[in-house]
């Protein structure tokens, strides 16, 4: 079962350029049907999960490629599979204006399988394998337009990601040597007897591995690939560079911290302080850069950088509550950011405008898109009643509860970042709806909202933003169970 959901999208992706579709719509139906089917399978599997580990291949000793559905995989796989069908639907419409669709959809669909592989991996080695694979299948998506800019960006993306993975690999080796097993176990697998007096070395290795996986999660100073990768078509930026790829980085760090090294080992050490300080810095740094940026998609990319570090901040608190905060932001941010990116994409698709200062007065021409953008902006700011508030509340609650002075400072960073978020998001909203007195509406003639393929995903995401904001108790309880190791 696990293998089916991972391999099905990969095979389907490979088939896309091979099957001679007569019409474009046939390919659309084929892909959408497969993606929906796969998502249904994933959800079925998550809800009727098997406790056992499924081992595909066994290498020497305790190294193996194996899969397991546990609480963390449920969160990440559930999230990814919920978003993918909508993103695919959106991509059909968006890609009408781009070339080489076949190639695009091939890699786009393959990525689905690889991401599921990461989330369902049962040990570090398997996760590492799919993690590398993810880099490789997404590079063609970044360089899709084949402009010089795109090729440079994809090269940068490749080098950063592979470099990061190499550092993470060091962490992998140390866990294999000093751990009792490489499988993920909540609470960590390190063997105290084996470590002996080498605690500091292991802490150093943890920091190195954190930074390694952190490259994908765009922590400072390894973040510059993410805004550059925004040259990719918007469905890629939205789904991969706001959810799948970057969240894989965050996911890997959660696995590393909670399931491999273990919070008991790390909590209260200098390593915790170092990584927490890095995330705090990234939170503020990302937002400040977003305020300065005038290109819409790049601005959102910087916002992603900062929001990813919200998640990592929750991780570095290293308490179950911190994990709850991290998980809730992981899920809620995914929905908010994909929604705002899709709005940006819809704007680019309908008007060919890329810069913030070109958006004057568009709010009246595209009321749906900008209405939804406003909701997601409010959610990102953390207005109560929307999902962003809940996840920030959980993060801050965990920080206060931990009693760690540095974490108190982290709450300050969250709030500074919230203010900066308001600045970079609401200036767009104000421009769009209040263009000013001497604005000539004639320049916007003929611009309308996009068609249902683009709007439907947007409305669904908005619905979830509001739903999670108003009634989050069940899902937070689920995260609590995950953090407590019940699943």
């Amino acid at each position, binding site marked *: 079962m696990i293998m089916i959901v991972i391999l099905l999208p990969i095979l389907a992706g490979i088939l896309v350029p091979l099957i001679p579709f007569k019409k474009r719509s046939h390919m659309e139906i084929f892909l959408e049907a497969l993606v929906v089917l796969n998502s249904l399978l994933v959800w079925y599997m998550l809800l009727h999960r098997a406790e056992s580990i499924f081992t595909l291949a066994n290498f020497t000793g305790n190294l193996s490629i194996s899969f397991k559905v546990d609480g963390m995989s449920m969160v990440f796989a559930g999230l990814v599979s919920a978003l993918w069908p909508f993103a695919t639907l959106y991509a059909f419409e968006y890609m009408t204006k781009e070339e080489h669709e076949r190639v695009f959809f091939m890699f786009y669909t393959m990525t689905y399988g690889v991401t599921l592989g990461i989330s369902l991996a049962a040990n570090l080695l398997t996760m590492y394998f799919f993690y590398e694979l993810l880099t490789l299948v997404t590079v063609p998506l970044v360089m899709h337009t084949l402009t010089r800019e795109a090729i440079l960006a994809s090269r940068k993306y490749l080098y950063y990601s592979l470099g990061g993975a190499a550092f993470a690999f060091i962490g992998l080796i140390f866990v294999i040597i000093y751990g009792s097993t490489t499988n993920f176990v909540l609470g960590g697998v390190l063997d105290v007897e084996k470590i002996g007096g080498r605690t500091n070395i292991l802490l150093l290795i943890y920091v190195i591995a954190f930074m390694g996986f952190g490259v994908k999660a765009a922590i400072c100073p390894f973040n510059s690939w993410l805004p550059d990768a925004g040259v990719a078509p918007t469905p890629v930026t939205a789904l991969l560079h706001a959810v799948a790829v970057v969240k894989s980085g965050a996911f890997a760090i959660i696995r590393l911290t909670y399931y491999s090294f273990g919070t008991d080992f790390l909590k209260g050490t200098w390593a915790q302080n170092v990584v927490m300080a890095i995330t705090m810095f990234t939170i503020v740094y990302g937002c400040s850069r977003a305020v300065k940026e005038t290109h819409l998609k790049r601005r959102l990319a910087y916002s992603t950088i900062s929001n990813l570090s919200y998640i990592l901040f929750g991780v570095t608190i290293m308490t179950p509550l911190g994990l709850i905060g991290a998980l809730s932001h992981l899920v809620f941010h995914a929905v908010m950011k994909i929604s705002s990116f899709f709005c940006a994409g819809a704007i680019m698709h309908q008007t060919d405008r890329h810069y913030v200062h070109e958006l004057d007065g568009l709010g009246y021409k595209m009321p749906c898109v900008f209405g939804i953008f406003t909701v997601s902006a409010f959610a990102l700011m953390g207005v*109560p*009643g929307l999902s962003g508030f809940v996840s920030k*509340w*959980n993060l801050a*609650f965990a920080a206060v509860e931990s009693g760690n002075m540095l974490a108190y400072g982290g709450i300050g960073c969250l709030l500074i970042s919230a203010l900066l978020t308001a600045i970079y998001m609401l200036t767009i909203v104000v421009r769009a709806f*209040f263009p000013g007195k001497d*604005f000539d509406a004639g320049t916007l003639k003929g611009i309308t909202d996009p068609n249902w393929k683009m709007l439907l995903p947007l409305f669904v995401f908005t619905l979830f933003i509001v739903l999670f904001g*108003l009634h989050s108790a069940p899902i937070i*309880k689920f995260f609590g169970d995950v953090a407590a190791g019940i699943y």
Partner: protein
Amino acid sequence: MQYIILSILFPIVAGLYLLIRKESENRKTLLLCTGTFLIISAVLVIMALCLAGGGMFTLFNLTDKLPIIFKIDEVSVLFSVMTIIIFLCAGFFSFEYMKHEEKEKRYYGFYLIVLGVLIALCFAGNLITFYLFFEMLTLSSMPLVLHNGSREAIMAGLKYLFYSLCGAYMALFGLYFVERYGNTLTFSAGGVISEQAASAHGGILLLVAFLMLLGFGVKAGMFPMHAWLPAAHPVAPAPASAVLSAVIVKAGVLAIIRVVYYIFGSSFLKGTWVQTTWMILILLTIFMGSMLAYREPVMKKRLAYSTVSQLSYILFGLAVMDAGSVTGGLLHVLCHGFIKAALFLCAGAIIYMTGKTRVEEFRGIGKEMPLLLWCYTIVSLGLIGIPPTGGFVSKWYLAQGALSSGIPVFDWLGPVILLVSALLTAGYLLPVTIKGFFPGADYDYNSLRKKEPSALMTIPVLILTILSVAIGLFPGAVVQYLSQMIEKII
């Protein structure tokens, strides 16, 4: 309890309806709609006040620990009555005034939404509910500020937005800690911080208390975060300035009342560095606001600076934490509300009838519109604090409270600054009267034409004037009503 929900939801829904409905050709239908909505909202609020009782009412839970609660207590009554009166007056005033502005529909839409949000703030029963509507207030009142769409107005709107949000986030920082160390987030007279928590985590709690005061103080125009107020209030259309300056800033005051007396409790804050620092900031604001108003030549800006200073009168009363001074502060909430609304409406009527905005152009204005300027003069005297107007009574209580509080230095410094500021208030308000009624010997009486504005404008001003005097003449009832509540919280 359904009355509470109705009184909050009705204006919001009505406002949204106005926003999304088609631009109608007929201005009269729009006004009729808005007028009806305003009156129904007022009736609903009064019904809620009379019939809802004092019980608590949980709407739903935001997360498992964060309920949205509404409750009506004495403070709610005070603030909601003031809100609804001023909104009605300014609303009917704008029916005439908004003739010379564009996009009326949008204006009335947001006007009604703001009304609903303010009522919700008055009725909020715990800190999280309050915070929710506090953010909504900022977001929904911003369109009123940038209404006329000039570059200056949009910049002022953004400034307002970012200052307010900055304040709200500071308050949110405190909220997290209150959630952790307090017994509950529900407003309870005397505070929710247990003695155990106060002794174990006193340092951090004082720090967050200070941050919350500073944060909510942004809305109340407290130094050092006051700069948005003189930028944002004058650029709005006059009736909107009136509600901004008279009511919306009071949301900050309400927040501070809730935080000081219903969350931290005066016994926890009394005599700490928080109280001292806060009072220093307040006294600075009072003096600075008056000084800046005195130097300002543009009428509406002058009034905005005056708001900065007058709001800190109220805050001073709250900061002294003495029964008398709190009574004075709360009375001043009412007086300043009515007076400042009337002043802004006067300024608006002058702009509407003559197009004059600067004080030095107001020569002979009293000859052109005597009734309006009489009202202006009476409420000005009230703001200065000359008996028998409301301002006198509230300042009396403020000074008396400060003198009897026994706080070293501040017990005399506070009243002195109040007096100096009163002098400055006279200095910046009365020149209009003098110029208006006594234009001088070389004034050309032949070209004088009566320009008294229509009844739609004068009657709201008149009502507000009468109310501000009435408080001064019959303060007993209000003071008695307040004293019951104050006994509980001090």
